[in-house]
């Protein structure tokens, strides 16, 4: 490109628009070509204030640390102590979030169970019912009770170690889902009582209750059916965390699961994922405040999900008041999702390792988010389970390292006073001081 025109006048440097960026323009061209919104898997990809914007201060003269290899730091948590005869006892405060058989292959679900078992934690069914493989390979299995009620039956309900009533999902608060026909194998179709090969729409709202008063009665019914034995969780999206937590507790929940906007989905509109819901970081303090206002903090446990990736994230969520966290996307990556070893195949699908999110199309090169028998063969559930166990162990060790450095002999002794924020936004959301100050936005009004 010449730096001047024929008259000798210099060209200005070509300038891309910040508003109409290349990414935005490609979205417009895609929409213009197809006439339909973009559907994809995963959670929000936009940058939002997150745990990376928080730091632990560690020990100092006023707080002494615990010896890393000598002094205990408890990671066990018990979920569902409020009403259930048999609460769930976990060795580590990291659980596996709900992901459906249908969205994931049977072997992938098996691997999640194997990994969770080996690490001493629970796994969760999804919008497709409970498979025998999953039940068989998961010693602690949480059964999701979803609006679609696909595969829902009282026998499986009674086999569950806990029931999670799903009101919302961080990726799409207020949204349902759609499993495209190409992923509907005979088995998936049979479990969902639908013909093979057709799109399966998942409702956004429960068919037989609306609002908190109904939810209280629904919880009563589920407890009566299961004899008050197992905990009942209520999962809400990061929408109105203070009120949703308050209402879930009022309705009788044993555990509140709160999923921020970075939490993934198998398939939903990109516009929904990116523009509806609040960041995980913004949801924790209001939820904890709700529990404290009801004098129910630690009595009703809080599980946080949506963008948990490392032991540092676990420790930060717990310092802000969570009792445990759940991972979904991170667990899939541990199993081998988006692995660069499949780069050539990702390229053939028009994407690249790390960015692949067309999970709903069933062509996953890693053989995880698919029902294609040939692709599924690429995934070994035993190896996958081992990888997940390793990852969970590393996260736990990381979280313990931080907790000990802060002088805590139990993960749940971490507290907001251990944290500072790197940005004003994170300081405001986490309600911890901006680093180097004793202030956060909104502090004086509290």
């Amino acid at each position, binding site marked *: 490109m010449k730096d001047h025109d024929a008259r000798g006048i210099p060209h200005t440097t070509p300038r891309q628009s910040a508003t109409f960026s290349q990414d935005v323009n490609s979205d417009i061209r895609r929409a213009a070509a*197809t*006439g*339909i919104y973009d559907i994809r898997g995963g959670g929000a990809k936009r940058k939002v204030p997150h745990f990376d914007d928080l730091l632990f201060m560690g020990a100092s003269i006023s707080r002494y640390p615990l010896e890393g290899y000598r002094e205990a730091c408890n990671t066990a948590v018990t979920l569902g102590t409020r009403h259930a005869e048999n609460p769930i006892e976990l060795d580590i405060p990291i659980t596996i979030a709900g992901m459906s058989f249908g969205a994931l292959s049977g072997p992938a679900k098996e691997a999640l169970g194997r990994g969770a078992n080996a690490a001493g934690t629970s796994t969760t069914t999804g919008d497709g019912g409970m498979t025998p493989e999953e039940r068989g390979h998961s010693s602690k299995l949480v059964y999701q009770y979803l609006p*679609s*009620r696909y595969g*829902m*039956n*009282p026998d499986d*309900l*009674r086999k569950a170690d806990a029931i999670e009533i799903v009101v919302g999902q961080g990726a799409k608060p207020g949204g349902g889902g*759609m499993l*495209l*026909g190409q992923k509907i194998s005979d088995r998936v179709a049979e479990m*969902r*009582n*639908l*013909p093979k*090969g*057709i*799109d399966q*729409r998942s*409702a956004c709202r429960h*068919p*037989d*209750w609306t609002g908190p008063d*109904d939810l209280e*009665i*629904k919880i*009563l*019914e589920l407890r*009566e*059916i*299961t*004899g*008050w034995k197992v905990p009942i969780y209520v999962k809400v999206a990061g929408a109105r965390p203070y009120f949703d937590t308050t209402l879930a507790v009022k309705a009788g929940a044993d555990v509140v699961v709160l999923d921020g906007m970075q939490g993934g989905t198998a398939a939903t509109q990109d516009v929904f994922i990116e523009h509806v819901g609040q960041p995980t970081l913004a949801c924790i303090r209001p939820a904890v405040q709700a529990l404290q206002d009801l004098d129910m903090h630690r009595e009703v446990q809080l599980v946080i999900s949506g963008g948990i990736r490392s032991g540092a994230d676990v420790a930060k969520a717990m310092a802000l008041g969570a009792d445990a966290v759940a991972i979904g996307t991170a667990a899939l990556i541990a199993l081998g999702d988006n692995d660069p070893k499949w780069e050539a195949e990702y390229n053939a699908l028009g994407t690249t390792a790390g960015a692949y999110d067309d999970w709903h199309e069933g062509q996953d090169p890693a053989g995880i988010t698919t029902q294609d028998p040939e692709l599924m063969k690429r995934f070994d559930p035993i190896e996958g389970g081992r990888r997940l166990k390793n990852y969970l162990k590393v996260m736990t060790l990381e979280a313990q390292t931080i907790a000990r450095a802060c002088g805590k002999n139990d993960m749940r002794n971490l507290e907001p006073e251990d944290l500072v924020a790197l940005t004003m936004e994170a300081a405001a959301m986490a309600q911890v001081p901006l680093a180097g100050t004793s202030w956060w936005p909104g502090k004086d009004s509290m």
Partner: protein
Amino acid sequence: MQSFDLETEGLRALNKTLHAQAETTNQTVWEITNPKGSHAIAVGLDAPIEVNVKGSTGYYCAGMNKQATVHIHGSAGPGTGENMMSGKIIIEGDASQYLGATAHGGLIVVKGNASSRCGISMKGVNIVVQGNIGHMSAFMGQSGNLVVLGDAGDALGDSCYEARFFVRGAVKSLGADCEKKEMRPEHIEFLKDILAEAGMEAKPEEFTRYGSARNLYNFDVDNAGAY
């Protein structure tokens, strides 16, 4: 016959007692007195017993029922028979909204009217209503049959899959992707049998069949407005 006073003995004791009835129980007939609109009566049953509820019930009576016959001698609250797998529910009075929501099997008989969202997301259950049904009935109905001797409200069978609807009276409007269908001999036969089983008098020939036009089965941008 075993009698159980819900008011004095309480809900937990009732459901616990009914759950304890095994396949081979000889206590096959139960009477529940003083239901007084209580919720979650006789939920999660799994034995071939007959439960007579002497009055009206609240939410979710006979929810997730298997095998049992639950006879409500009054009107039934929201979500009655939700996710039923098998067995039978008879409602002498009217039924509130979401009757038989997501139910997989068995038969639900309503002698009065059923409210809105009757048979929502039904997955194989048969429902027979002697009176009328409300709006948005059988929304996303997947399979099973909804038989109505009276009229249906707005948006019958919206976004339905393979569930079938037989209405004798008027249908105020059909929901998205629901259409009128031809009555073939097998449908007449089916109606004859189900009406007999429900103990209702009506001529099968007087019914009209409705079901999915199957235009929403695989996403097509030209149908986007219907979703």
